[in-house]
């Protein structure tokens, strides 16, 4: 495990400088006017940033309302009897709900659980796996589709949600299987 972590983290550190270096040198060899090309491409950066603003505001405000009003706690209380059956502790449920909605919110819940229950408790391991294997689905949907002005998202949303649910269920099952 440690070997894998070390290898991947070394590659991660080297990746960006190495990639930029390689692309620039390759471009120069292929006689591309690298500086001019770079600037030409980079011009779009501002437009993309501005283009995603309305989509991001719409998505984040809706998620903000849902979180701030206490709806998450209520939802957790309603579906608790079901999740209890599959071996998910009540404290881990808010994590499962928040993971696709808010990255910072999920990180906060994970840190809180690790602090209260200790990092090597079953529930802390479970939320760590949920955190590591999940993604902020709705943020990704908002900016990726927003950047090309797409509002009709077709099968992306249901498939994304199903993948999220599978990820959560797998986390619960695997953690119970390995650590319990």
């Amino acid at each position, binding site marked *: 495990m440690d070997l894998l972590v070390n290898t991947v983290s070394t590659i991660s550190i080297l990746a960006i400088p190495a990639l930029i270096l390689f692309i620039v040198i390759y471009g120069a060899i292929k006689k591309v006017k690298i500086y001019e090309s770079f600037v030409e491409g*980079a011009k*779009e950066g501002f437009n*993309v940033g501005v283009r995603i603003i309305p989509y991001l505001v719409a998505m984040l405000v809706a998620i903000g309302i849902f979180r701030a009003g206490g709806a998450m706690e209520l939802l957790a209380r309603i579906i608790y009897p079901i999740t209890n059956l599959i071996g998910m502790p009540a404290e881990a449920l808010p994590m499962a709900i928040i993971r696709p909605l808010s990255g910072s919110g999920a990180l906060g819940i994970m840190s809180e659980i690790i602090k209260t229950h200790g990092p090597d408790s079953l529930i802390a391991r479970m939320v760590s796996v949920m955190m590591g294997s999940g993604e902020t689905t709705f943020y990704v949907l908002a900016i990726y589709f927003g950047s090309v002005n797409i509002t009709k998202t077709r099968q*992306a949303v249901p498939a994304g949600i199903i993948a999220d649910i599978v990820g959560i269920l797998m986390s619960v099952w695997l953690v119970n299987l390995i650590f319990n």
Partner: protein
Amino acid sequence: MLNYIWASLIVIGILVAVWSDWHEISTNKYHNGEEYPITLKLEDTSVLPLQKSFSYGCTVFIDDVSGMSQHANLIPSDGNHGILRIFVDENTPPLWREIFTAQKRSDYLLAHIRWDGDSANSLSAKMKFEPVKFVHLNAVTNDGIIKYAKIAVELAIGLIGIMALWLGVMKIAEQSGLVAKIAGFLKPVMTRLFPDVPADHPAIGSMIMNISANILGLANAATPLGLKAMEELNKLNKKLGTATDAMCTFLVINTSNVQLIPATVIAIRAAAGSSNPTEILGPVIVATTVSTVVGVITVKLLARMQIFKKELS
């Protein structure tokens, strides 16, 4: 579907807040209007008589609870009235703490008091907390709506610099033919995943780079490369504003998280003193792989359904 989810988040969020507030008001959770008999002892008795609008350090004793005291500042107003700023500490009772949290003052609990006559160094008085109402609806407005609208713009603006960088770098890679070359490496996989994207299209190269950056956990590079790929995919889109099958598949790969090493999670576990911070790695890799595979299969199956098909035509 996004329409329904969006509406549900807003409607459920606000209705739950209204219901919670109504519940708290009807059960008077915060004991609004309750009067507490208290005794105030000034820290410095040489300041008497009290003057309006000055602030006096004092200790508050609650008459009904023996042995409980709180530090506070007394700010007298007209007559025998004034306000009390109580500093919350470890002695503060739970209900008061809740009122403190709900009042949202930075470091004190606000109460109104009136006392009977100026006495030497202690005042016996009646104290009422500033009433607390609509905690959840206030939270929705301030912590939900206003805060998140601001965060959204900050996130988008924060993306501009790194976005410009990668779009610039990608332009060089594109014009030098590198993107097309990268696309060639994984041709068999990519043509299967994205059958309606030509194998030599620049979108393929961008998608490969985005997925690689995601696997390595390079969020700063992955998002700009992903947005670049979306732009390329959109060039193949015959119905602007509607997602193509390729876009949906690409999105699901991104939302199901293909990251190999969750560096943040491991760092937090290590900082919390875990005996083996990386022990979660095995289940993370399995869970994320299974969810990605299921996601891709689902998105492919759903693409065949009439209800999603007809949106394209």
